[in-house]
């Protein structure tokens, strides 16, 4: 019995200490948050997400590139036009499908649309009749923005545009041709500071916030010319907005040089840069 009593007495303080530990345990965990490891975990997950996206984007761009290469590698068989045995008919052969179609044309209506060169060729074909002649009809140069002949292509810009949506968008070749021709006046649509810093030689500044009065001041320089607006390049729409301002001011011979300042500079065409620091107001011409 004595032994039992003694064991009971000893066991009491043990229970108390156990209770104390249970109470103390959550306090310890609250006082020491694992902020460092949590940040590390956040960082690691962020890196994993970033890496996954990088890999995905790279794979996607590779796939796109290979797809484009495949498309380029596939020989594009263009349907060939063969003037058929009978005069007044055209046979079209498609090498992809091995199919052919014969079209009957009305020579009377066709001749009205033919140029003298084409008419002569057509007459020759008609004369040959059933000899199965297949002459190559050279298309006459066409005055259009898609023509490969730059001077011919640029003739289109001399005509008035009928709406803002139809304002021509020209590349560096056409811009340079128009610049050299002297028929065009270039308009810088960037801010005045950038214009003063450097601009295409001879260009005027019509920023997007220019008023009608500002544009009216440039009337003498703009009248009768093809107005070519430009800004920072492809991603920039300031040249569009300036062109619209000029359209609203009554000018109709308008073109937007979408390559803009970066493209012009890249080709090292004539520019005007700001004078050195000691002459801040003056501008010097730099023909390159």
């Amino acid at each position, binding site marked *: 019995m004595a032994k039992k009593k003694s064991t009971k007495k000893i066991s009491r303080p043990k229970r108390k200490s156990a209770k104390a530990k249970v109470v103390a345990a959550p306090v310890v965990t609250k006082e020491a948050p694992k902020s460092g490891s*949590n940040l590390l*975990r*956040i*960082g690691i*997950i*962020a890196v994993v*997400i*970033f890496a*996954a*996206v*990088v890999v*995905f*984007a*790279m794979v*996607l*761009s590779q796939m796109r590139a290979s797809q484009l290469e495949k498309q380029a590698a596939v020989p594009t068989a263009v349907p060939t036009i063969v003037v058929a045995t009978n005069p007044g008919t055209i046979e079209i052969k498609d090498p992809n499908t091995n199919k052919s179609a014969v079209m009957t044309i009305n020579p009377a209506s066709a001749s009205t649309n033919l140029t003298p060169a084409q008419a002569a060729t057509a007459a020759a074909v008609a004369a040959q009749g059933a000899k199965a002649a297949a002459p190559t009809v050279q298309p006459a140069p066409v005055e259009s923005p898609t023509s490969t002949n730059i001077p011919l292509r640029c003739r289109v810009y001399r005509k008035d545009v009928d709406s803002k949506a139809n304002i021509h968008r020209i590349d560096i070749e056409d811009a340079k041709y128009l610049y050299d021709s002297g028929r065009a006046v270039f308009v810088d649509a*960037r*801010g005045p*500071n*950038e214009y003063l810093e450097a601009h295409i030689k001879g260009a005027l500044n019509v*920023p*997007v916030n220019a008023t009608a009065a500002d544009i009216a001041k440039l009337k003498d320089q703009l009248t009768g010319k093809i107005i070519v607006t430009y*800004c*920072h*390049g*492809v*991603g*920039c*729409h*300031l040249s569009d907005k300036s062109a619209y301002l000029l359209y609203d001011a009554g000018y109709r011979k308008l073109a937007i040089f979408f390559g803009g300042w*970066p493209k012009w500079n890249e080709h090292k065409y004539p520019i005007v840069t700001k004078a050195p620091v000691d002459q801040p107001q003056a501008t010097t011409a730099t023909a390159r």
Partner: protein
Amino acid sequence: MKLFLKLISHPITLGVFRVLLGLLFVISSITKIQNPAKFMDSIEAYGIVPKLFVHPMAMIVPWLQIVCGLLFIFDIYSQSSALIISGLLVAYTVAIAQAFARGLSMECGCFDMIPWIEDRVGWSAIIRDVIFLCMSGSVFLFDKNSVNIYGFIKKIFKQG
């Protein structure tokens, strides 16, 4: 101050921040994915990224935006996504600020698909990006980095 902290660390506020930023990032990334050439031009126009990195950046950034935006919306690893989004926003803010300081008057190429957001380099763009940065920063600081949507779906299935 305590009230303000309480307000921005409230789960509902954080939820609103996440959904708003997530949607903005997803929507703005769509045009960039559709037309990477235009985005490349936008990056190039800032004149701070070397030409060598322009193409990889134009390929990676829109996907990073869309992934982080979706993670934000669905509350998956919000803090990690917030870290990436904050990084992107810091980069955008610095780029816009330097362009503005240099006097470049150009479109910022940030939200060209959302017509009611000013898409031009200037004070408004800088302030807007700083506000977005504060929002993503509060998500990073106060949100939980867990897959909450997974638990939510699990709960629905259990109930079902």
